[in-house]
């Protein structure tokens, strides 16, 4: 993955830039020492690293605005950062950029149960948003597996999802408003406690814009009353086709589970060795979870297990109590860790039409043979959001490149069957060069035109999302103007 060469003119600005940033921020909020900037050299896509020119940690929207205004005036690129858990390299700096981290902005500003929303500063972690309201019986629905660490700001930028989005939707469906600062320092209030936009739906386009349109400093989030209870059921099948059919039949039957998770044999085996959750050794395993009162749960599970039985499961296990429920989820929740025990891995998240599941899994198996790299599949089956985990050895020369080539082939396959490159992790740098496989040049041009409007100088996170060749004229126009 290539990054643009740093602009020497910007590198030379460092002393003056640091001095100006120190005028508007607390002394410990401007990090410019080379040893310390290393802390911001990468996100969770750790294969790519580069320390930034400097990092700033503002505490208020006003400070964010001051920082952006200064960088705008001086022509310095800015990379916004939440908690740095992006798997796509979204928060990866370039040597000539300023990392703008919102980690110090983590207050709850308003809790309103009558209208069912919270307003928080954007650096607050996902889980601690729920933490602020759960004692009163509410929760914030989008639940990425990284929820202990990841920030609302990163969730908004990536439009993150989670295991329960089949029922509750992803970030964009639960976001009511933002305070956002444009690159020139303008502060913008969009949406709020009311339910729809007065004019164009800017909120919709900002969510998922990967930190390229503005820096989000505050967010109004929809909260929901907690369901009375939840219970999972586990089922094992001896073919992916049959498991895929079960998913489709459950959906067609009119029950709407909160989650339908799928694991294939390599993943089941790795997980068993690691977590000993007691999973059956079979080709495909499904975990289906439903919510409600005890009675409601039984009613839904009766229907679901009926469907499951019709397809001759090798195993069908309903959780009778809390402990059994925990054990059913245990393996699924440790799947990433388990694969990590075997080797380094790369996690992709292409999405496909549900009906294509068996075909795509078969093709991934064949490609795994060709590339000579193992792959385990664990994913959100209800919405077709795959998560192939490709195993490789980072210390072995050539393995990373082989892994990336394999990954790219899987993603092209997702597009080919009518799906997309990424369902929840975002494009970042990782899938940037594959965008041409999903979009025609004009489709990319109209997206870049949106960035032209919000950030005419292309200073915000400029080397992401769009293939470098496609964005080059726009980025170069800026450099030429300096």
């Amino acid at each position, binding site marked *: 993955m290539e990054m643009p060469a740093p602009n020497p003119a910007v590198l030379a600005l460092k002393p003056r830039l640091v001095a100006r940033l120190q005028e508007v921020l607390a002394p410990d909020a401007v990090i410019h020492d080379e040893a310390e900037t290393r802390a911001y050299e990468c996100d969770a896509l750790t294969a790519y690293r580069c320390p930034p020119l400097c990092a700033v940690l503002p505490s208020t929207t006003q400070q964010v605005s001051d920082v952006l205004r200064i960088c705008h005036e001086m022509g310095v690129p800015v990379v916004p950062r939440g908690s740095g858990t992006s798997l796509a390299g979204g928060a990866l700096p370039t040597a000539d950029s300023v990392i703008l981290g919102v980690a110090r902005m983590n207050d709850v500003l308003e809790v309103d149960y*009558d209208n*069912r929303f919270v307003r928080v500063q954007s650096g607050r972690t996902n889980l601690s948003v729920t933490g602020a309201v759960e004692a009163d019986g509410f929760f914030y629905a989008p639940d990425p597996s990284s929820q202990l660490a990841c920030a609302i700001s990163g969730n908004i930028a990536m439009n993150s*999802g989670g295991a329960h989005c089949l029922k509750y*939707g992803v970030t964009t*469906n639960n976001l009511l408003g933002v305070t956002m600062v444009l690159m020139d320092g*303008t502060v*913008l209030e969009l949406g*709020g*406690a*009311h*339910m*729809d*936009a*007065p*004019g*164009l*739906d*800017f*909120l*919709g*386009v900002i969510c*998922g814009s990967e930190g390229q349109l503005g820096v989000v400093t505050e967010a109004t989030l929809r909260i929901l*009353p907690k369901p*009375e209870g939840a219970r999972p059921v586990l089922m094992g099948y001896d073919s992916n086709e049959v498991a895929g059919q079960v998913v*489709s*039949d459950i*959906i*067609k*039957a*009119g*029950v*709407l589970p909160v989650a339908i998770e799928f694991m294939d044999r390599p993943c089941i085996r790795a997980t068993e060795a690691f977590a000993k959750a007691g999973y059956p050794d079979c080709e495909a395993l499904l975990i289906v979870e439903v919510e409600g*009162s005890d*009675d*409601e749960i039984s*009613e*839904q599970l009766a229907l679901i297990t009926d469907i499951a039985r019709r397809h001759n499961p090798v195993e069908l296990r309903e959780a009778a109590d809390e402990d059994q429920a925990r054990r059913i989820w245990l393996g699924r929740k440790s799947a990433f860790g388990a694969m990590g025990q075997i080797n380094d891995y790369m996690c992709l998240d292409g*999405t496909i*039409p*549900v*009906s294509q599941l068996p075909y795509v899994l078969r093709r991934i198996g064949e490609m795994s043979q060709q590339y000579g790299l193992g792959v385990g599949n664990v994913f959100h089956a209800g*919405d*077709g*959001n795959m998560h192939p985990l490709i195993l490789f050895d980072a210390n072995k020369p050539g393995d990373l490149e082989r892994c990336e080539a394999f990954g790219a082939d899987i993603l092209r396959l997702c597009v080919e069957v009518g799906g*997309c490159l*990424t*369902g*929840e992790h975002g*494009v970042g740098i990782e*899938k940037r060069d594959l965008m041409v496989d*999903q*979009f*025609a040049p004009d*489709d990319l041009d*109209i*997206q870049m*035109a*949106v960035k032209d*409007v*919000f950030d005419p100088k292309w200073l915000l996170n400029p080397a992401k999302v769009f293939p470098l060749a496609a964005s080059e004229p726009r980025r170069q126009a800026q450099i030429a103007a300096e």
Partner: protein
Amino acid sequence: MHPTSEADLADAIATAKGALRIQGGATRDIGAPVIGTALSTQGLDGIVDYEPGALTLVARAGTPLAQIEAALAAEGQRLPFEPMDHRPVLGTKGTPTIGGVVAANVSGPRRVQVGACRDFLLGARFVDGAGRVLKNGGRVMKNVTGYDLVKLMAGSFGTLGVITEVSFKVLPIPETQVTLAFSGHDPARAVAAMAAALSSPFEVSGAAWVQGQTLLRLEGMERSVAYRVGALAERLKPYGQAEHIQGTAAGAIWQTVRDAHALVGCETLWRVSLKPSDAPAFLAAVDPDHQLKCQIDWGGGLIWLGAESAENAADTHASLRGEIASRGGHVTLLKAPTALRTSLAVFQPEPPAAAALARALRQRFDPKAILNPGLMG
């Protein structure tokens, strides 16, 4: 103009000499009046792909809404966001199209639980003002590949592009529904009761106040609904004894809420979007003597207001805009004689920074300024 293919439509736009008035079924005469050549999308019709097992449907923009709803119903599914039929209340004729639903982001009572039209829109194809055929999103349920222009197109009223094809996430029609109806509520009591209901775990899928009655809808499987109806009625005891309305009778009630039947015949009509708990004070301030017809939906978040005559419309309009300014939210003038829709700002004017972005975006999407120019202000 009546193109029958996307390519013809693109050609018509690329070679257009002046303003175009984009029409689906010509049923939603919303926004500032547009003067221009009519461009109909009705020639682009038909369902392209429907996979019930994947809960996804793709259709061309000119497809009649009724055709889509029938196809879904045959598989026991539906458009979850419950698009309203504007014809009764606007006094229009014609056949509503799915493209018009999307262009106006039309959403009904279930919005309070499941979201708006834009939340179910997975992808769109459209032609921009330069005549380029563009696509964004797709037909899968989760997609963060590139910017989400799909949401931007929803509710853009044809001012950014002419939509040619849309794809949706759909949902199963639940087995049964029951509505709890409380009588004798004023707006304050109604909004309090609705807040209590919506803050409960019982999954209320409609919360409206019409003609003194507070209506709460529960949908789902038989036993589940029976349980939740009991639990909810118990929780809402302080708001009175509720009448239980079942099955088709409940369905009929929600259709009248969805289509704002209480305001049929009004010459002037406003739609107010605000923080739900603000609704009672807002109403008390703008209509202390109950001169206007009123319906509350979305637990308080949506107020419909109507006046039988257009006589004092300009004054009422000013007072609504004044009152909302101090609270947050917005007011749309949905129906009024053409002269008024020309002289008054139909859509709430945006704050300067947002307005500047909107102008710049339109300039990029529609450089010749020919797509419904001026409709959104």
